[in-house]
């Protein structure tokens, strides 16, 4: 039997919704694949595209999860900042020959533990299909 490839997901979660949703999945003992490394952010609006790209260099996919639009964001419009940034990021990824599906944005509220687990399942399947993300880079001094 050949080993199946297990993708590595980095998840940027806002502390009010995405992260609380992940917590809810945990306290409700909902199972999901051990493919995800969560990182807590104050708000999805705080996530710069350079954070996402640096994370992608070390992972196979990056998930960003925050509060539902239009009105759940604790900072009023942070979720829209993330939405806008990730939309243009996807155009950039396509130009660079990277499948834009490797970056995924979802709205997950504090009570949606089940949705968090399903998102991880789903993203893991998708990334298994895509295969590993190989980052070839220039040789750099230092």
């Amino acid at each position, binding site marked *: 039997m050949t080993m199946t490839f297990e993708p590595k997901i980095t998840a940027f979660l806002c502390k009010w919704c995405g992260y609380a949703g992940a917590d809810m999945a945990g306290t409700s003992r909902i199972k999901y694949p051990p493919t995800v490394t969560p990182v807590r952010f104050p708000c999805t609006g705080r996530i710069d595209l350079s954070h996402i790209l640096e994370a992608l260099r070390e992972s196979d996919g990056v998930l960003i999860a925050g509060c539902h639009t239009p009105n759940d964001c604790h900072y009023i419009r942070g979720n829209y900042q993330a939405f806008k940034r990730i939309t243009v990021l996807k155009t950039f990824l396509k130009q660079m020959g990277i499948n834009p599906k490797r970056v995924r944005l979802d709205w997950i509220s504090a009570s949606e533990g089940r949705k968090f687990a399903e998102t991880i399942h789903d993203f893991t399947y998708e990334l298994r299909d895509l295969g590993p993300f190989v980052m070839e*880079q*220039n040789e750099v001094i230092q």
Partner: protein
Amino acid sequence: MKKAKFAVGYGSICGGCDVAFTDVGTKLADLAEIAEIVYWPAVVDGKIERLEEVSNIDVGVYFGAVRTDEHETVLRLLEEKSAILVAFGTCSCYGGIPGLGNVETSESLLATAYSNAPNTRAEGVPSLEEITIEELKMPKLRDYTSSPADLVEFDVFVPGCPPPVQSVIDLIDFVKDYRENGNVPDAFFLAKEGTVCEYCEREKPDKISIEKVMRVHESDLDEDECFLSQGVLCLGPVTRAGCGEEPRCTSKNMPCRGCFGPTPKIRDQGTKFLSSIASSIMLGKEKQISEEELMRLLTEGIIDPVGLFYRFALPVAIINRKHQEK
């Protein structure tokens, strides 16, 4: 006093950096007075054997990016033989315009240039590998363009595409200073620390919200107002200042394209700008339109992020070359 030995080597260039030197006019005569030009393909001798022979170069200057093995050979020879190594031009500092080739593979670049472009005849595409015909060698074309500054350690950086006249004058003064006092600078930038915006005289509003991304020819530009607040993309906020007392482009009614590269505080010029422009679109008014409408504004407003935002520094970006995925 002995003349300083001065050498200029080429990577992947357009010729503009040579022209920048001639732009200083009579000041060039000063250079001839204080320096002996031992190697400079456009000026004295361009054979690599010549560069292999000379020793103890005082100031070695590199133009261009690294795309072939030969480019790297020239760079390494200069590094090995020069007391002061200068990265001249944005290509040399950050990979520059030739670095945009990194959005394609070498195979497809050659196919476009030699066969698929409308003005070429499809008579075969040259090989990527090194070719030798009798004595002549065509170096191997590499998979991607590298920034020379990622391969060797420079003492002086002269950004700009091409660098402004003042930078060339400063560089010549600098050769003089080295010859007289032996000063070797340490990672020294002939540029300023701040952003282009800090030197731009245009009126800037406190908050910028772009309702539609405009191209220069589509808008009736107010010559005294910030480009961004008029919907025209200007890279001033992420670009290093130093191209002039007033920025070269914005003072001539053209937006900054970012040729001085990122400011010292920024890791990646294009990514930073992409983030901030995306959030400026419909800033504060996002909820007035549907998400589909917002998405359409973003995808139709910014169709070529690489060409717009990574025009001069793609080889040093976080993601800097074409990947091959389904």
